[in-house]
């Protein structure tokens, strides 16, 4: 969907970029990765970031968490403050000096790296090369666990019905819904239930939710009601922006459901007694 990587001269009429071929994954796990936690996880869902670290470490991978990281720049970018987004992006691009994969605990932020950084730096050839290299090694967590780590999850929990919500950009830019579904299906006692209009946006959209609170509010009201109607005991999502939106709405409506980050859910479901005691 994004219009990047096109390389027409500025005034040449644009042709849509060809369909992207399915992503190919490296064979074998790397020994070390960077974790990009994202700003929302940092401040509001830090346990999700920690659980991502646990899951990666269990795969025998060393995790580096660059302390200089902040935000991918998406809020400014989608609000039309391109310059501000670019400078924040520039700060993030300094963080990943080694050639390791970059694992991101949010599909939309991973999508920002992969799909939109090239647009931000289209006029800076040197940065563009750097950006393209980052894009190639950026993975959303679920995707990384599934396709790079080839993870085999062993469910330790009681039977549970969960509903999965996937952020729109994660779904459309990163196929995160497919990866998350595949991971959930590895959990023997977990049944994933569909909810009405599952692929529809929860209404978050970053600054959209505060610029257009009525429309956004109507969307999240429908989303929470359909999640409730699905009969799921728990909601899981790989995107904390949506989770903040959905959970905030659940709470406001006194709906006793809570959305959890996929990383936390997977870690809690698969933690052995031994791991829990450490």
């Amino acid at each position, binding site marked *: *969907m994004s219009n990047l990587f096109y390389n027409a001269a500025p005034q040449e009429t644009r042709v*849509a970029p060809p369909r992207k071929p399915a992503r190919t994954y490296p064979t074998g796990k790397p020994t070390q990765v960077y974790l990009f*936690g994202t700003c929302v996880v940092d401040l*509001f869902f830090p346990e999700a970031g*920690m659980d991502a670290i646990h899951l990666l470490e269990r795969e025998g991978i060393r995790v580096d968490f660059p302390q200089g990281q902040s935000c991918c720049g998406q809020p400014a970018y989608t*609000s039309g403050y391109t310059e501000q987004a670019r400078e924040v992006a520039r700060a993030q691009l300094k963080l990943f000096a080694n050639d390791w994969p970059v694992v991101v605990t949010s599909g939309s932020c991973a999508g920002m790296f992969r799909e939109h950084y090239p647009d931000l730096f289209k006029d800076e050839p040197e940065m563009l090369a750097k950006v393209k290299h980052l894009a190639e090694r950026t993975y959303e967590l679920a995707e990384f666990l599934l396709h790079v780590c080839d993870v085999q999850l062993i469910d330790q929990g009681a039977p549970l019905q969960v509903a999965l919500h996937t952020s729109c950009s994660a779904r459309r830019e990163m196929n995160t819904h497919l990866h998350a579904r595949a991971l959930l299906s590895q959990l023997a006692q977990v049944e994933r239930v569909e909810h009405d209009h599952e*692929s529809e946006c929860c209404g978050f959209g970053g600054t959209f939710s505060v610029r257009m609170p009525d429309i956004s509010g109507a969307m999240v009201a*429908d989303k929470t009601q359909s999640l409730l109607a699905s009969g799921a005991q728990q909601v899981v999502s790989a995107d904390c922006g949506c989770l903040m939106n959905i959970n905030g709405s659940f709470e406001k409506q006194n709906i006793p459901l809570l959305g959890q980050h996929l990383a936390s859910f997977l870690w809690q479901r698969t933690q052995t007694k031994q791991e829990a005691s450490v």
Partner: protein
Amino acid sequence: MNSQRIHAVDVTARNLKANARLSLKDQQLRHNMRSAMDSLISKRIISMPDEDERENLRELGNKVRARALSELPDLLELLEANLIKQGIQVHWASSTDEANAIVLKIAQTRNAKQVIKGKSMVSEEMAMNEHLTEHGIEALESDMGEYIIQLDNEKPTHIIMPAIHKNAEQVGRLFEHRLALPYTNDVDSLIQSARGILREKFFHADIGISGVNFAVAETGTLLLVENEGNGRMSTTVPPVHIAVTGIEKVVANLQDTVPLLSLLTRSALGQGITTYVNMISAPRQPGELDGPEEVHLVLLDNGRSQAFADSELRQTLNCIRCGACMNHCPVYTRIGGQAYGTVYPGPIGKIISPHLLGLENTPDHPSASSLCGACGEVCPVKIPIPALLRRLREENVKSPQQAGQVMDGQGSRYSAKERLLWKGWQYFNSQPLLYKTGTFLATRLRALTPKNLGPWTQHHSAPKPAARSLHELAKAHLEKQS
């Protein structure tokens, strides 16, 4: 730039937020829209089951449109030359006022009193009905949906299904009140009643008006797509046919219409083809016994050449008006078409209306989207609608003094205060020490998080920062590991 703008509807376009608030409360509208859009979504996908076929065709559709735009002035001249050669008169209009003046002049020359219209969104853009009425000429819509909303003094809520927001009962009541017909909610009876009334109108009309789906340059052919037959009636029965269309609707040759037709009807309605595809290349010829004696084509700019000037925004003009973007839009589905206050609602409306009306008249349109991407995913000609919405947001918050003016009303949402806030945000997020200090404070002072966060807390509880940030937790954990 374009000094003359659409009237009649821009009054409410500026009030998108307030309009939306009203629509959201209309439960009947919400219900009607949701069920209609769900049905259109499923029809589309049933008609395009093969992903490869669909995606390859979308790519071809995109290229065909892009090619036409890449040689648009040449194609327009070729179209004009061929139409004139075949006896069709061609008129050009920079603004809707000019277009209305052209139509009125033709009508007055013919001493016309009654005009019957096939469906045409460009005529809506022109507010042609109002203009003709002001000059004592009756202008009647004949598309069933358009007829219904004209009876109710409304504007179309959808570009393909103008009255989709009404249910049969509402239409029945409308016919009862406006046409003095006995109430029924039986759709067949309602349609037959309207057919009877409109047949007489076709019979007596002095002029028929239509839109154009594709204007084929190479053969000088106006191609019109429809199901009802009112388009054929409007373009065949009256002695004069005036087609109005945007300058972007031209394609190079007939074969280009093959993928576009297939994409159009399947994306719009889930139909492999519409009941009628009407290809008009000339007025009535010597020896022919029917058809209009005069055919006119009015080519309207109205802001299109502004969109055309920028290669990114130019992609807006790929649009073939199928409406799939609205059918799939979670915002449109909830607020309906009228809340946009523009002729073109939904995602395509949000990217085209700022060019037609100026950003100053559509200041909230680019922002009224969660950028979920559903529109871009289904667009048959691959317009990157979310990317264009984002681009318009950028133009919208630019300082009006900034160089590089690309559109009217640029900077309509410029706010020095907001820009300063984002600069602060930039500074905060690009200085690691500042960022860490900030998050440290937010976590330590979490108990002080305000309960009222303005618009956010209308629909959510206030989010509370965690006790420790991931930066801190990760640092502690990873230090322990090594």
